[in-house]
């Protein structure tokens, strides 16, 4: 039975991806007369040069983090979709910590990360508390918090930490003590991906091997049952969202310390919403988040390479992600096949 389910989910996910790619190809056919060339760059671009492979890995890092953040709340059946704002505000907090905390080698990196985690956690705590205390919809309030994070963060950066000598609206450059080290000499591959993988293992251990993780999953499976079996549901609602926010906040810190060395965003980078498709592809399993994030990063990187080589807007990949979300969560999609499979296995057991 369990094996059947895994086969079914794998086939369904693969089919979803293929359908989305096919739709992408059809869109390209309408958009350009060089569709084949564009599609080739899209599919193979990320592996075409070493620099692009590094780009692929670096882009995977924030997606693992936001995928984990979303998985944690989704496992508790909580629709806090504020990872975007938590990441953004975490990055703002990281900028503050990088600029104003004592410039001590190694120690500052840790402090910046902790500060960003605290900021992301605090941001997530608002909808969490509202939900637990007053039963206010975390969906709407977490969306509102995204916008507050964006505007408040921009205000803090543009008016208090802005480097007026830089050509663009960016913060001061971080001191070297707040840079993540390079792992390759010629390319800027930062160790964020290792930290992200470490966090995936950590979150897996938390969810499947600790009492708190068990309670969290129970609340997700059946809230009333969890309550009757003595789990304090309100506490779970709060700590699951705070943990999720801390992970998202950390992503913001690592992105800045590893890649940009200063605050550079005037738009939200979108990783929070990408985290939703990562979590869905991974079926909220922290270990599966790693390949899922790699896959989404692959699509993203492919779309940018395609954009650079052929002038097609890389936003096409956002459309494909949306189609994937729709098909993966569509329960009736391929349901007939699932039913047949269940019937077959039941028949064979009877014999």
């Amino acid at each position: 039975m369990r094996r059947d389910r895994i086969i079914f989910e794998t086939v369904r996910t693969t089919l979803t991806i293929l359908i989305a790619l096919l739709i992408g190809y059809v869109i390209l056919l309408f958009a350009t007369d060089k569709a084949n060339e564009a599609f080739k760059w899209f599919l193979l671009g990320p592996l075409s040069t070493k620099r692009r492979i590094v780009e692929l890995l670096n882009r995977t890092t924030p997606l693992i983090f936001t995928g984990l953040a979303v998985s944690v709340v989704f496992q508790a059946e909580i629709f806090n979709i504020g990872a975007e704002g938590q990441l953004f505000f975490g990055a703002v907090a990281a900028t503050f910590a990088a600029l104003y905390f004592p410039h001590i080698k190694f120690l500052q990196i840790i402090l910046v990360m902790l500060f960003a985690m605290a900021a992301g956690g605090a941001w997530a705590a608002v909808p969490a508390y509202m939900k637990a205390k007053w039963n206010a919809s975390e969906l709407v309030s977490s969306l509102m918090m995204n916008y507050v994070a964006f505007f408040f963060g921009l205000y803090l950066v543009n008016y208090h930490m802005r480097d007026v000598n830089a050509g663009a609206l960016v913060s001061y450059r971080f001191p070297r003590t707040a840079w993540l080290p390079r792992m390759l000499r010629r390319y800027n591959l930062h160790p964020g991906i290792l930290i992200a993988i470490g966090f995936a293992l950590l979150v897996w251990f938390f969810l499947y091997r600790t009492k708190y993780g068990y309670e969290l999953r129970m609340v997700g499976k059946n809230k009333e049952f969890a309550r009757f079996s003595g789990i304090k549901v309100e506490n779970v609602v709060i700590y699951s969202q705070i943990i999720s926010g801390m992970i998202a906040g950390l992503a913001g810190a690592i992105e800045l310390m590893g890649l940009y060395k200063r605050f550079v965003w005037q738009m939200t980078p979108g990783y929070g919403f990408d985290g939703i498709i990562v979590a869905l592809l991974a079926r909220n399993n922290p270990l599966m988040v790693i390949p899922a994030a790699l896959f989404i990063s692959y699509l993203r990187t492919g779309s940018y390479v395609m954009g650079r080589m052929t002038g097609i807007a890389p936003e096409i990949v956002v459309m494909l992600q949306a189609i994937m979300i729709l098909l993966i969560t569509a329960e009736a999609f391929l349901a007939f096949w699932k039913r047949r499979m269940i019937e077959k296995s039941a028949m064979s057991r009877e014999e």
Partner: protein
Amino acid sequence: MNEVIKSILSAQFFYSVLRVTTPVLFAALGALLSDVAGVINIALEGLMLMSAFWGVMVSAWTGSAWIGLLAGVASAVLLSLALAYFHLNLKTDLILAGIALNMFASGSTVFLLYLFSGDKGSSSSVKSYVLPNVDIPGIKNIPILGDILSGHHVLTYIAFLSVFVVQYLIYKTPLGLRMRAVGENPNAAQSVGISVKRIKYTSLVLSGLMAGLGGAFLSMGYVSWFARDMTNGRGFIGLAAQALGGKSAYGSMWGALLFGAAEATSYTLQAIRIPSEFTNMLPFIFTIIALIIYARAKIMQIKKIREKQTSHEEVGL
């Protein structure tokens, strides 16, 4: 500070409240129309964006703002049909489907904008048309009141008229009765022969219609171009406004007006050189506070009812 108070008390301020309320009011009515049938339409944001985009593009191609409006609204309705199909036929989770459609709208509008105009930020290079402003004869000449109520965009009037239409539809027509029945208890509605699926389809389409009008207002009235992600959370705020207003169109209207007042105030604050980043976040903070107050009041109400029940039981004993 005096300056601020003076400008808040001016006719111009109230005029701008009605203006900035318009898109949120459409979104709130859209939220209400789906909510009464028990469907949370979180895709409002994307539906509005879609309509804003196609309104601009089609008006530029045809040279007619009205055909643009029609196309914009049609695109929003089409997308809400897609939402209904995925949710009702393919059993996709409603919230995730809504998020997906918001992503789809955001991605596809930027993709097509670049394809059509060569610009990814805005459609300023495309010559599009706007819908007219309307003076109301009679009211126009009344001092102050005329300045506040007359000369608005045609969709602003349609928005406020829609409040009454929607209220009538929900509470005075057979369709509205069915919608409420489905929202209240789908199984009971089914058992008396109402097609739950059909009613939910209808209310999502109506919801998309409202969102379409709101989106068209943004790009063909509020400003005269389309910009990337220009809805800027207005669809979500519409959801919040409706949540504050409960199941009545009037309630939704007051919720939307509250938000409109907050946004108009934030523009006033910008005039005295408070950074726009700071003032832009005020409506969202305001919405969060309103949600807290509303949720608290609701809990108190439930508590009171429970207390009453228990005291009745004691009397019964």
